């Protein structure tokens, strides 16, 4: 779908590389430019096979950088900077996630990049965005997640707010969301260029990508003047709407409509307690959840999570397993849909990882090439494309430019 786009990526860890991978998955040619001193920081991030760090075996790196070419280049000194300029002259998109101001100092701020190639779209994804009072602040995925407002919905209502602090998911989900937002914004700029012939600067804020998720709580405040609380007294509107334990894990069980509750009661064999006046409707079940939960748990504990989900779904009751990574990889539904793609990596071997996040008719999910080894395509890119000689390459290697 994006076969005619050339993307230069100068990014590390998750947000920028994920953006470029989304473009690469749909056919764009992505040239990933890494610093020769060790490359993308993700190469040093776990997981590694057997927990043994190896810059060519990080599961995070391998999965985020499939379908890309990889070169090494120190863009802060000549002749590296000149090679980078030449790459940008041939490119449609530059994706970067350096700290705010870093690209300017390196001579590649947007004003300078526009001089090099006025048609280039430059996408900068940063923690807070390039402007605003926090733009120079330090950030981590933890602080961004909690600043975005999501943490009061993770895990939502708590028993004891003094010890149960707001949580974030293990892993770096906010950075992935920022990567997706960057891909959307990049495509907006590419489509604009069809009409104007000009590129532009795209400023993506990871904090705001997170704040998007918080729209439910934002609405409570803007339209009812209420601040959604984590305190237990603020009951959920109905029940069950909960995670419950099973023989082999957990399910998420929701009866949003009364019909669904009645069908669940049928599945449970209409035990006597369901006749109790306290459980007559959703709001009442929510109010007496403390009494209802152990009764429902007695039922769910007799089942496996997939088995119970299937039985509920048969009756059109919204029950799903709480999947672990093992469940996802073993999931027949996802496997049949080709959600996982396989890579054959020269160092890390055969691995499967999630492919593109949707099935598009014009771009089947596939890995055209595994993630690049550090500097794997230096010769392809610098010699065959940019006309450097083998001797030039040798000199640059000695100077640590590549």
């Amino acid at each position, binding site marked *: 779908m994006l076969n005619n786009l050339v993307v230069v990526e100068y990014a590390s860890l998750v947000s920028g590389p994920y953006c470029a991978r989304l473009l690469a998955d749909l056919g764009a040619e992505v040239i990933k430019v890494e610093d020769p001193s060790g490359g993308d920081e993700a190469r040093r991030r776990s997981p590694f096979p057997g927990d043994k760090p190896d810059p060519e075996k990080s599961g995070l790196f391998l999965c985020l950088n499939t379908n890309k070419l990889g070169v090494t280049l120190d863009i802060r000194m000549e002749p590296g900077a000149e090679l980078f300029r030449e790459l940008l002259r041939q490119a449609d998109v530059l994706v970067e996630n350096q700290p705010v101001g870093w690209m300017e100092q390196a001579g590649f701020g947007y004003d300078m990049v526009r001089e090099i190639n006025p048609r280039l779209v430059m996408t900068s994804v940063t923690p807070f965005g390039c402007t605003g009072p926090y733009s120079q602040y330090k950030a981590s995925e*933890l602080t961004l997640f909690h*600043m975005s407002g999501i943490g009061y919905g993770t895990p939502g209502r708590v028993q004891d707010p003094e010890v149960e*602090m707001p949580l974030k998911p293990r892993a770096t989900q906010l950075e992935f969301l920022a990567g997706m937002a960057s891909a959307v914004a990049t495509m907006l700029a590419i*489509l604009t260029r069809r009409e*104007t012939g000009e590129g532009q600067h795209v400023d993506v804020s990871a904090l705001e990508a997170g704040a998007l998720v918080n729209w*439910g709580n934002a609405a409570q405040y803007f*339209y009812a003047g209420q601040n959604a609380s984590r305190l237990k007294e603020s009951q959920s509107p109905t029940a069950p709407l909960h995670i419950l334990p099973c023989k082999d894990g*957990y399910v998420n069980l*929701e009866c949003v409509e009364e019909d669904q509750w009645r069908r669940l009661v049928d599945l449970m064999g209409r035990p006597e307690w369901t006749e109790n006046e306290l459980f007559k409707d959703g709001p009442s079940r929510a109010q007496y959840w403390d009494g209802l939960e152990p009764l429902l748990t007695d039922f769910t504990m007799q089942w496996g999570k997939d088995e119970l989900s299937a039985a509920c779904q048969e009756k059109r009751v919204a029950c799903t397993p709480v999947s672990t990574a093992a469940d996802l990889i073993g999931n027949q539904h996802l496997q049949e849909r080709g959600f996982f793609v396989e890579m054959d990596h020269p160092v890390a071997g055969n*691995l499967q990882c999630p492919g593109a996040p949707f099935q598009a008719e014009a771009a089947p999910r596939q890995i055209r090439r595994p993630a690049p080894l550090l500097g794997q395509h230096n010769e392809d890119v610098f010699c065959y494309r940019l006309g450097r000689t083998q001797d030039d390459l040798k000199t640059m290697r000695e100077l640590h430019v590549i």
Partner: protein
Amino acid sequence: MTRLPLEGIRVFDMSWVGAGPLCGAFLGTMGAEVIKCETAQRLDALRTLAPQTDGVPGVDRGGLFNLINHNKKSCTLNLSHPKGVKLAKQLIGISDVMVESFSAGMLAKRGMDYPALKEIKPDLIMVSVSALGRTGPWRDWIGYGRNLHALSGLSALIGYPGGPPRGLTVQWTDTATGLTAAFAVLAALHHRFETGEGQYIDLSMTEATAAQLIEPIMDYEMNGRVWECVGNRSDLMAPHNCYRCSGDDKWVAISVSTDEEWQALCSAMNVPELARDARFSNIDGRLHHQDELDAIINDWTRQRSQYQAMQVLQDAGVCAGPCLDGESAAKDPHLNDRGFYPEVVHPEMGQRRVIGMPWKLSGIPQVEFRPAPLLGEHNHHVFGDLLQLSTEEISELESQKVIW
């Protein structure tokens, strides 16, 4: 003259609730003409869900609805009437993109599945948003947001150390899917400009969420390890947690990634003996003694507001930020400075805020935000101007509950 990216693109939006409508809001705000196809027979749930503006109920008073349906038009069509189906097909025939989130089989029954619509509009881009996708053994499963958080693997990653999965109550999968749908539409538009071809896009909310869970999936793939809940903690950094501040349920998030930052944190908290404490001098020690560390930091943060704590720590070069809730995020100076919650004037709800977009394009210095449409507000534009029906024909169709 500002050129919006999607000027001249028409989107027929038959989706509802969260994911599809968010996608439509992005496209509409970026210049597409987004026509939301609704019906009084089965309203978009967000029109009637709480919060209703200022507690007064009405189909045009839904706060959630206004928040994510800005920059759209609304027409009403009853698809259980054959004439309604016919009009919908005519509108799809003059649209570039169609987005839908009906339950499985609903469109096929009405002759409106992709193969049928492709006959009407050969280069149509059609996006189906569903819980699990339109193929595969579980394609007919139903699921609300939290069901899909669970199924996608996200819920299992949220919980206190060693405890059960606690999941989440915010609209993560709707949001991730809304962004993903917008990306799919834009990439498909690019493809159509280049080749003249439309296409069908099958978007599973479960997959849009699970595709971003690369770290736990790869750890299982490489090491057979299933992740347990660890609260806010990290394998790479310590301290790395939320700490209690002054005020009702207020917290600040702090993470320390280097020994230098650790020293800076000790100075900022003004406890020099901590900086010399051998237990905490390197990352292994800090990871090993997290409980002690968290208790010490909590003692310091408790005496400060979350913004004070952030300010002192950021000034010292320590990564820290307040844990915001709905109200404090709405008031946050940075988000407001960037215009993340733009204001619109809605004919019924009045001056209200909506959700912005997490990007700024240098080519669009000022984005115009328009309020969500009233139910059927644009029927005369859609059926009169676009389909050339006369006022009498429209009234007739209204009385037959076709335009309804």
